[in-house]
């Protein structure tokens, strides 16, 4: 499984920094979010990247989550979570793997759930 990229790649769905969305956001492709979202984000099987300008107040459910900006809400990732050094996260994180860069801020719980490999 490859780690989700932190930079917006070509072909990747993007929400620019001038965009504000309020409500439920769901999809079946990877998403780069550099704007504001309030509500909930569901990208089951896909990855969410919150860019450096991104401001998210939402519960997040995705395969992978990379945070460079601000995220307020609980995060449930079936694969991994990456908090980059500029990340400011308030909420509980539940994931299989997590990496946190020096300088990242987290207020909340980290719960690692492991899937047994047979």
């Amino acid at each position, binding site marked *: 499984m490859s780690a989700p990229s932190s930079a917006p790649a070509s072909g990747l769905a993007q929400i620019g920094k001038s965009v504000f969305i309020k409500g439920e956001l769901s999809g079946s492709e990877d998403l780069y979010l550099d704007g504001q979202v309030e509500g909930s984000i569901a990208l089951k099987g896909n990855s969410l990247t919150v860019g450096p300008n991104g401001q998210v107040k939402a519960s997040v459910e995705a395969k992978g989550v990379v945070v460079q900006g601000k995220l307020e809400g609980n995060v449930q990732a079936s694969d991994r979570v990456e908090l980059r050094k500029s990340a*400011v996260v308030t909420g509980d994180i539940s994931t299989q793997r*997590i*990496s*946190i*860069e*020096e*300088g*990242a*801020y*987290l*207020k*909340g*719980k*980290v*719960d*690692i759930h492991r899937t047994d490999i047979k």
Partner: protein
Amino acid sequence: MSSVSQTFMKFFRGSSGPETIPAQGSQKLTRRSSGLGELARSWETAEGLCVLDLGSTSPTNIRHFTERGHRIYSEDLLTASTDPELPTTDEQGNAVLDSRKFLADNLVYPAAHFDVVLCWNLPDYLDESLVKPVVGRLWSVLKPGGMLLAFFHTRDAGPDSPCHRFHIVGPDTLEMQKIELRRDARRSGTAPSAIADGFQLQRVFNNRHIENLFRDFASIKFFLARDNIREVLVVR
């Protein structure tokens, strides 16, 4: 709740103290900690502990606990105390921080939720008006028998008393890193000017102060270190 007269108190002159060898960065020091060593036995032998780290977010500590199957909560109370909405005045007109608002926004957990609380040097640097309310809240969120580790300066060494964050790098070894105020607090201009260059030591607690502070806890144990730090391990 037990009174302080019922507490079990011991003094140890252990080998805690800083090593002179700097760790990775120039501002990092490694330090042996007898209090941590004793506390670590609980998380090395038990499973599924609930740990609250009140220092700056530490990837090292998060990894340390999650690798062992424990749940860790991270909450940086010093940074939270710089909230610009907290300053107010008390009945005498003294400038204080609003402890009620502070506890409405922070340390919001069910009663008896945590097995371990890592307080580090928080009481030494936290505003006076928040110290007792915070310790009271910590008592309530700790499980009976749960343990709390805190560090206190034994004297004010002025500029030599910088506020540190602590990373667990061994069973009884910590890496200390000088705290710089968070960039976002600086950026938004919310930080009071007095802490713009970091947090200042607010006071020096003596043994009696510390006993009073934790008087509702069941026991308290002191570890004296060579670097003018008194480590305190309390049990609820």
